[in-house]
């Protein structure tokens, strides 16, 4: 993930389902095509829901990283 430049990052730790997903959706709505977005979530449900939403919405999940026990999801807005 070293080469990826994140356009916008949101720390949604401490917020529960559907908080992190809604935060990602809000960011995707506001972003430009090609932007790379990151959402950090400590909610277990996000592990399933975020990648599932990214697949359904046909954006690209560039990766997931561990951040002090939470997960940082890195997503590219593709359209």
């Amino acid at each position: 993930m070293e080469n990826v430049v994140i356009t916008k990052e949101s720390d949604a730790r401490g917020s529960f389902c559907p908080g992190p997903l809604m935060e990602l959706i809000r960011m995707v709505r506001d972003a430009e095509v090609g932007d790379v977005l990151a959402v950090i979530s400590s909610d277990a449900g996000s592990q399933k829901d975020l990648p599932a939403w990214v697949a359904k919405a046909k954006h690209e999940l560039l990766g997931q990283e561990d951040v002090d026990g939470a997960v940082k999801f890195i997503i590219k807005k593709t359209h």
Partner: protein
Amino acid sequence: MKNILIIGGGTGGCIVANTLAKKLDDDEAQITVISASEQHHYQPGWLYVPFGREDARSLTRPVRSLLKKQINLLIGKVEQLDNENQQVILDNGDTVTYDYLVIATGSVPCPQDIPGLSEGGNHFYTEKDSFALYQILQEFRGGKVVIGVGGLPYKCPVAPLEFTFLFEEFIKEKGLRDKTEITYTFPLNAVFNIPSVAEVAEPILQERNINIETFFNLEEVKADEKKALSLEGTELDYDLLIMIPPHRGVPFLQGHDIADAKGWVKTNKQTLHAGDHKNIWALGDTTDIPISKAGSTAHFEGPVIAKQIVADIRGQELGEDCVYEGHVMCFLETGYSKASIIDFDYSSPPVLKAPNALMHYQKMAFNKAYWYLIPTATI
């Protein structure tokens, strides 16, 4: 003598005002309610209006008739909150000062937040819109019907599901079921955000041949082409679109220091204080607490605020019961005279019983008993 000001004459405002009036002596405080409307609406009744099962006109009563007589009622719209000077400014220019402020201004459905929704969509979240939908359903002869949640947050989270069940029953009774395709949409990856509710609701939707479209975040309605488009790229054709618009807090709170850009008051989820303000509280729909925006939420929050104000006026210590534990209790109508009940708090998710007739009749009885029990703070 202290001045207690409550903005809002809806469920939360009336409960707090009447609870305080019961607890405090007349020489301890002057309680004032400011309400933008002379009427108090029993909003849960709007669910039944489109089907002709309730008359919208019977779902309102004057706010005055619900408040104890020692409570001062001002009809007017707050346009500005000046918390530095402990005052609010009304639309007629009057200023009202306070020592303690309670914000109970509810939430506002905002179809204008989604392009085309005002033109192409219907809903039942206001008196006017529920009656307009009644008229549409009177003329309905079948077709593609899309019912769903057009954006988060919105009040009474189960109402769109309840509406879907009641709609299916309604068209079946009209003999139009085989001419009607129903699709239910929800923004998340399930039919509802609480898993135990989704587990009960999903099989009922399937049994009744209702299509399910999850991860559907409404992006645009093309009213002239009769298409509803989602952010995820799904396109649904419709003949009748019933979409609950995303909600906001009231205009004077949008962007105010104590609230966020959408007007949700930054509220302590236990004490219900607005931010760091020790003399301002919020309850009901207007808070940013991530919990159902429901009348029952306001009902369980109200006494927590009233107790804190009384203790402060009397210089008493606060009891341990002076926190809101996230209690919410709602019915879930599933159609065909059956319902279930959803009861939970911050630490215990709801466990639902199978829908049954007893719960449905309890809800029907509650709809009538509301006026005597809830805004009056009798229970």
